[in-house]
């Protein structure tokens, strides 16, 4: 009977691949179970009684946090890209001690984010810290700028700015490594040919480096914008009075004991990240199409 042989062969196949199944299934099951749990709870909380996902939109707290996070992302992402490009260009061509320099440039990633936040907290402490002493002219080598010490964590601009400073400082090496990998794929012949034909530095950068670097740039932009949206530790430590979305989620969950609102906020964050990723992918594709002329 044909049916029986078919079943038999599937059983045989299973038995043959039992080893592979046995070693892959637990891992995927574990990840899959948590993926379902995350999705399930986020949707359950967001669409529970009173539709927190809609009602949170009218909360002033949420709107302020959203606006702050949006600016944080919009300014932080290009800033991190620029820093990454500068660092990568500095260590791209080899010189004496290039590998040591590259290693030194990797130090920030070795410092835990929480510790980086602590360092910034120490440097910018109020009323007396290195930065305040510097700005009020207590060191002989720097002019006096401030009359009174400045409470950095008391103003929205400075506390969010410090959080961004921490983020940029700590994640410099990541952007640098991606850009560096992109630069290393560009072949030297193109530059030589352009130079022979009389292209200057700016033209070489615009017509060779930039178009060929766009994949790396787009990777950095997308990864960094995701990172900036979801940033938690730096604003949590440095700007607790002016919550970003991540800090707001923690506050809704722990202080206000409202997992429904927290879940709704968390789901919105996921949606914003999705939208930004889509937008950046589209934008970089368009720019690339404009830069690369065939």
């Amino acid at each position: 009977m044909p049916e029986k042989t078919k079943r038999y062969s599937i059983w045989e196949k299973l038995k043959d691949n039992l080893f592979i199944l046995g070693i892959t299934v637990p891992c995927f099951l574990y990840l899959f179970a948590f993926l379902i749990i995350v999705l399930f709870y986020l949707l359950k909380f967001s669409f529970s009684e009173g539709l927190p996902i809609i009602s949170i939109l009218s909360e002033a707290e949420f709107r302020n946090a959203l606006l702050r996070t949006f600016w944080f992302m919009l300014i932080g992402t290009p800033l991190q890209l620029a820093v990454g490009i500068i660092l990568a260009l500095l260590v791209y061509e080899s010189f004496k001690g290039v590998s040591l320099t590259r290693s030194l440039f990797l130090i920030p990633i070795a410092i835990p984010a929480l510790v980086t936040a602590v360092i910034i907290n120490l440097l910018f402490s109020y009323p007396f810290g290195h930065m305040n002493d510097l700005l009020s002219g207590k060191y002989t080598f720097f002019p006096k700028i401030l009359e009174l010490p400045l409470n950095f964590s008391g103003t929205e601009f400075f506390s969010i700015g410090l959080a961004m400073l921490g983020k940029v400082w700590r994640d410099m090496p990541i952007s640098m490594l991606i850009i560096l990998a992109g630069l290393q794929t560009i072949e030297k012949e193109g530059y030589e040919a352009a130079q022979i034909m009389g292209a200057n530095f700016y033209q070489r950068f615009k017509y060779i480096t930039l178009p060929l670097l766009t994949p790396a740039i787009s990777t950095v932009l997308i990864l960094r914008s995701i990172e900036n949206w979801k940033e938690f530790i730096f604003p949590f430590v440095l700007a607790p009075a002016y919550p970003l979305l991540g800090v707001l989620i923690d506050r809704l969950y722990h202080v206000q004991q409202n997992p429904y609102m927290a879940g709704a906020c968390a789901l919105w964050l996921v949606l914003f990240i999705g939208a930004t990723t889509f937008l950046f992918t589209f934008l970089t594709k368009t720019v690339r199409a404009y830069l690369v002329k065939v």
Partner: protein
Amino acid sequence: MVKTILIAIVIFLIIFPVFILFKYSISDRDSIVTGGKYPEPFWPFNPNLKMFQSLLVRNDFLQSGMVSLEVGFLTVIFCLILGVPTAYALTRYRIPGTGVLLFFLLSIRLFPDISAVIPVAEQFFKRPLSYLPPVVLVSLAHTLLALPYAIYIAKGVFESIPKDLEEQSQVLGASKAYSFLRILTPLALPGLGAAAIYTFLLSWNEFVFAYFILFQGTDTTLPVYLLRILTWSPQKNFIAAISLLMCIPVIIFTFAVQRYMRTGLTAGAVK
């Protein structure tokens, strides 16, 4: 010339904060409590190691250090047991839909930590998982974060080892499991060591999940302990000493696995 100056500036910007942390950790009282009469010195008046000495006999600090170590090692064990065989299967066998599976591996990381932590914490606070000790719960959460990276690194390691070795052993009559354990694993150990270190560091540094899961308990990992200390507004040298002790294993290990870090850092790039 411009380039040299720029490099010097960048190196200064990178070294200076680390130096400041070190400076505070060995500062005496006069160097941190200035009362505004004189500027904070860039080198303490009487450098000493008192803070480290007092920390190393502090019970709550040692306790959190132990918790961090336990969580780290458990996470490494979970990740290796779950991840290494999977990476092996993904490199050595033609599994239909490997691309989809690889994307799926990363899909949990597409959720921001701060969003994913709420469902995970809610699930962990419910029975039957809530019966598990908090240390195990935190390491289960960390496994979730580190597993995709561990698999990507292990996959890179296995791809670099020629398949012929296993085939030859199988021709000689070894089973698939035997050739995996006795032929491949010894060859792959150095690379897998890098995966283990990467996993350990991720767990050692991880804050969000540990903070949510340990929120009400008495156990704390080092980052959570550091945060709790921060809320008391402690002396600068105390907080700096804790931070510095927390950094040391990270700095040592990071430079040990620099070569493999790149895989881990850019693994998300294919998202």
